């Protein structure tokens, strides 16, 4: 997995990943992308969302 932020600070993410991230409240910054050329795809957002939920559950 590669970091999905370019030198110019733009986040490389698919449109579907972006919409999903907004919907699930996932922050794309810091996510790494598993798509072509390190792009964040929906799968990455789902995984991040699940990890986040798992972490919050542990913290509680």
């Amino acid at each position, binding site marked *: 997995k590669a970091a999905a932020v370019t030198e110019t600070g733009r986040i490389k993410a*698919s*449109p*579907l*990943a972006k*919409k999903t991230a907004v*919907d699930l409240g996932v922050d794309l910054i810091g996510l790494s992308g598993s798509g072509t050329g390190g792009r964040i*795809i*929906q799968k990455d957002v789902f995984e991040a969302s699940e990890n986040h939920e798992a972490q919050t559950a542990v913290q509680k």
Partner: protein
Amino acid sequence: MKVTVIGGGPGGYVAAIRAAQLGGEVTLIEKENLGGTCLNVGCIPTKALLHSAELYEEAKEGAKYGIIATDVKVDFAKVQERKKTVTKQLVAGVKGLLAANKVKVVKGVASFIGRDVIEVKTEKATEIIKADKFIIATGSIPAKPPIPGIDSKQCIDSTGALELHEVPKSMVIVGGGVIGIEIATLYSALGCKIVVIEMLDEILPMMDGELTKMIRAKLAKKGVEIFTSTKVMSFKDAGGNVEVTVEMKDGSTKVFAGEKALISIGRKTNTKALGLEKAGIANDRGRITVNDKMETNVSGIYAVGDCIGKIMLAHVASAQGEVAAENACGHNSVFDSKTNPSCVYTKPEFASVGLTEEAARSQGVDYIVGKFPLAANGRAMIMGEDGMIKIIAGKKYKEVLGAHILGPRATDLIGELALAIGMEATIDEVIATIHAHPTVAEAIREAVLALEKRAIHVVDR
């Protein structure tokens, strides 16, 4: 890195070139013709013949467009000659590309004699070749079902159908898959009376059912008779004809006679001669087992294309060939079929990528559908064609999940939607893209707009 590729079809020769680009020392073994099924007896010859057939139909119907040709005839020998010119040129091209990439080509039959060694029976001798990596791309051959009488001389396979010297007066086509339907399109255009017998309840089962019904109607209009849910029981040589006895949907028996019977019920992997067991390569009745890196169970041995018995398409073989070559040369590539288009060269063309509506439904995907009829597209109208574009999108995020085009240039138009699926585009991105006027491609945007009931050139309700 020594890489040996077995088979010179679109899977093998592409793998060989890619491996050479990455610095491999590559040998390619091919027992017959470079280009494999695709260039010699598959994709290219069918499309070359179909192009002539299309020109014939257009010339005959020219009067509608003010182009008057009184006496249009098919010189079938010439048609075949043109086909040969094209295939020869492309095969020579492949030879040249391999040479330019310094791939050593050996003519002969390869088979494994160990995990890292094959023997190649050439015309004169048997060569032993050792390599670090092997890529198997031996393709497939027509399947021949054990139906009584199938050895009648009038029973031909796709290779035979592409090499006829005359247009037969009539033909019974057994199997309504891509090959059967393309050959039906070809010979019906050239004046042959065609009957298609399909065992399943629809022809072209991988395509979207709604559009398939439209192409069926078009074929019917041209006199192609199609019987689905119908099973061939036997063939009988009846002199000039072959008699094909079938069991109809309702259980009754019927006999169709044809000058030829084309057997196009599928293809099977061509791995028998390979000695897979000698190298311990896992396979399922001849279909080589691979993971998404195209690796077999034996480290260093890859397999791609028809010989793995999954998606039997030339562009899939080539895509897998690139992946295997990259992995063989130390890179890390995976094959993903989600952008893989399926095309049928009917008239008009028929193309599909991603989920069909049937697949979406059976997978329980929450989807919406947008459609646009090409009868409302100016460019299609100018060409005297119609058809339909149908887009399947996810209900929640409206990502493009599938696209289906029946219409002129469909096989080339599908590329835009394959890219959309690959990039996880939602319909917003397709809508934001300006589509040139007057093109058939405009109708892609309209079909996508229709998903939100906001198409411009069709009344949305």
